[in-house]
């Protein structure tokens, strides 16, 4: 039990940090531009596949730098040539554009790399157990992922607090309607923010790819969870997104690790009852309901606290 708790906590924090790499960009983009970027998780997927391909061509370490940059360029292109032209048709059109992009990116990825998982491996230098908890070997690569995401997290903090663009972003988070009046070249700032957000998502993909499964449906799987994170944390709140990322990361990881069900706690139902929704619910394990937990959370939040954990605006 103690072993499960330690391992799951580590994994949960790790998954949470990865989620934050994505949700931070999504939150900032949403606050500044009013666009809920449906394709954000697709940039994460592109990061993973670019990382995989570049690793095969030139090795993991160059890929770690180049792949996120490439994704960032793709993101800037999307902002410059897509969103900016669609802006005049309103937010629904922008949302639809990113929806279409997410769809198209998934199709393109599965067209090029196929629908089954690709063989994206942990680089050899990091392929060893970092330490042993009780009887489980904890892989060094996961520690590396954790370090990278913490470093990025700190870099983000510093950027937000210390740089001019960071100040603009902060202003935009608190007073979204004022972005237009900032007097800076708003178009350039938007493109930059979108590019950086996409690059961060791409980076998350590059480092997560070897550890999780790199497959063409990974964006469709992660995208909705990201929305849950930013609604849960409170739309437009970075600290909220951070807490929600960790929380959902932990919940998901623990749920997957737990095999208990009502049947295992209270004993099996009388077999004479036959199959019914009750027996389904009775026998389902926590691990099996892990995928729906975020959505249950979303519904509960929207009912009981529509502004999310730390949001100021009612969503």
């Amino acid at each position, binding site marked *: 039990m103690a072993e499960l708790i330690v391992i799951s906590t580590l994994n949960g924090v790790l998954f949470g940090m990865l989620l934050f790499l994505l949700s931070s960009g999504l939150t900032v983009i949403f606050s500044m531009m009013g666009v809920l970027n449906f394709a954000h998780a697709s940039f994460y997927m592109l990061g993973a596949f670019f990382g995989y391909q570049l690793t095969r061509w030139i090795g993991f370490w160059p890929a770690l730098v180049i792949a996120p940059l490439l994704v960032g360029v793709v993101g800037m292109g999307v902002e410059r040539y897509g969103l900016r032209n669609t802006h005049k048709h309103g937010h629904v059109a922008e949302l*639809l554009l990113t929806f279409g992009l997410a*769809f198209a990116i998934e199709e393109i990825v599965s067209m090029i790399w196929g629908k089954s998982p690709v063989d994206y491996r942990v680089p050899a230098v990091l392929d060893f157990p970092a330490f042993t908890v009780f009887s489980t070997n904890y892989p060094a690569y996961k520690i590396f992922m954790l370090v990278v995401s913490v470093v990025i997290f700190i870099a983000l903090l510093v950027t937000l607090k210390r740089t001019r663009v960071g100040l603009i972003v902060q202003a935009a988070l608190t007073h979204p309607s004022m972005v237009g009046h900032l007097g800076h070249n708003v178009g350039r700032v938007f493109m930059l923010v979108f590019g950086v957000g996409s690059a961060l998502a791409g980076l998350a993909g590059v480092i997560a790819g070897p550890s999780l499964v790199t497959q063409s449906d990974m964006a469709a799987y992660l995208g909705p969870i990201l929305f849950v994170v930013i609604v849960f944390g409170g739309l437009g709140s970075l600290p909220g997104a951070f807490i929600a990322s960790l929380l959902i990361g932990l919940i998901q990881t623990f749920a997957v690790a737990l095999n208990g069900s009502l049947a295992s706690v209270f004993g099996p139902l009388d077999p004479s009852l036959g199959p019914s929704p009750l027996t389904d*619910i009775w026998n389902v394990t926590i691990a099996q309901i892990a995928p729906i937990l975020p959505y249950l959370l979303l519904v509960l939040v929207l009912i009981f606290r529509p502004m999310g954990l730390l949001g100021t605006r009612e969503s």
Partner: protein
Amino acid sequence: MTNAPTPSLAAAKQESGGALGFYGVWLLAAIALVVLPLIFSSGGSLTSFSLIGIAIIFALSYNILLGQTGLLSFGHAVQYGLGGFLAVHVMNAVASHNWPIPLPVIPLVGGIGGMAFALLVGWVMTKRAGTVFAMISLGIGELVASSSLILRSVFGGESGITTDRTSLMPLFGWTFGPQIQVYYLIAFWVLVSAIAMYALTRTPLGRICNAVRDNPERVEFIGYDPHVVRYLAYMFAGFFAGIAGGLTAINFEIANSAYLGAMQSGFVLFSTFIGGTAYFFGPILGAILVTYLQLGLTNVTSVWQLYFGVIFIGIVMFAPGGIAGILMKHRPLIRAGTLGTVIPSYLVAAIPTLAFALGIILAIETVARFSGGDPINLLGIPFVATAPTTWAAAAVLVVGGFLIARITWRRVAEAWDRAATVARDRGYLA
């Protein structure tokens, strides 16, 4: 009526003409639905017509939300799928108890299923419009789709739940075994649903839905609660989506969790938006086109879904009014008789645009078939995916087509402006 201003003669004439046209259109539609299978009688086309009919109801129901009330849903398939499941369960129950309920009533059961779910979750969901509604609908969609895999006794797990449509009591000797009988069942429901949904747009509720779409804030100051309006719209959309789901269940004699999924929700969004949300007939066009392409393209290319994505992105960026919007834009010009001045520029623009589109297709197919697959056949010309000449051809078509098309479309815009000015002068354009 004495002190009311008498409507002008022209308006009165227009109105009576409108009523005549109104019944005429539905009559024509009814005749077309009856006659179609007599002209195209192969089994394949019957299947296609059936699917198109269902898609039409589904897309129209979606447009109650998107086009009429301004609600963008990413989970409309939930109501469709639940309607389908309820229909299957009721069909099985009817068959095993020998209840005297004929098959044509079953879609109504599906509708009730869709509406019941909307009744249940709709109040919370429709509190807000816009992005928030979009997100919640996505979340609910995922929730229901994943739950359906857990509640195996209700949803039948991966394989779904089957039924036998012929096991219900026959109606006037019809067992609904042959596809042609199923087609007429679907056609009947298409006509009834389409008329009902059109009628809904003309009611006070329908009108207020439009007002909520345009300006929910102001609606509160003319006596209406926009939340209630959205909730009602959501229930009606759920009802008709459920009818479509029930028909699908009858058509395939199965309901499975794919009916509820994100893919299905995405396709109804595509159909509706590509057809055009601003006019009632837009989603009909979209449903016909998308279903037809879906059926046709699957045999031609393995990446047909990508083409939908590309078409959809193109529509969002360049023609957000969809096909219906493009068509209706020309109406004032036709009335003013100035359309002729625009057509030559269209013809000129068509050539590079077509070249550009072919270039895109060639590029996509080259990538898709690079590591194996049949050779590409574009307008009868064979291309080999691995040949550099093919790549060059694609690049030339895409880049050249794009650059030239851009110039010609500017010409179109100029010609258009001139024609519109004339139309405005003649009073056909505001």
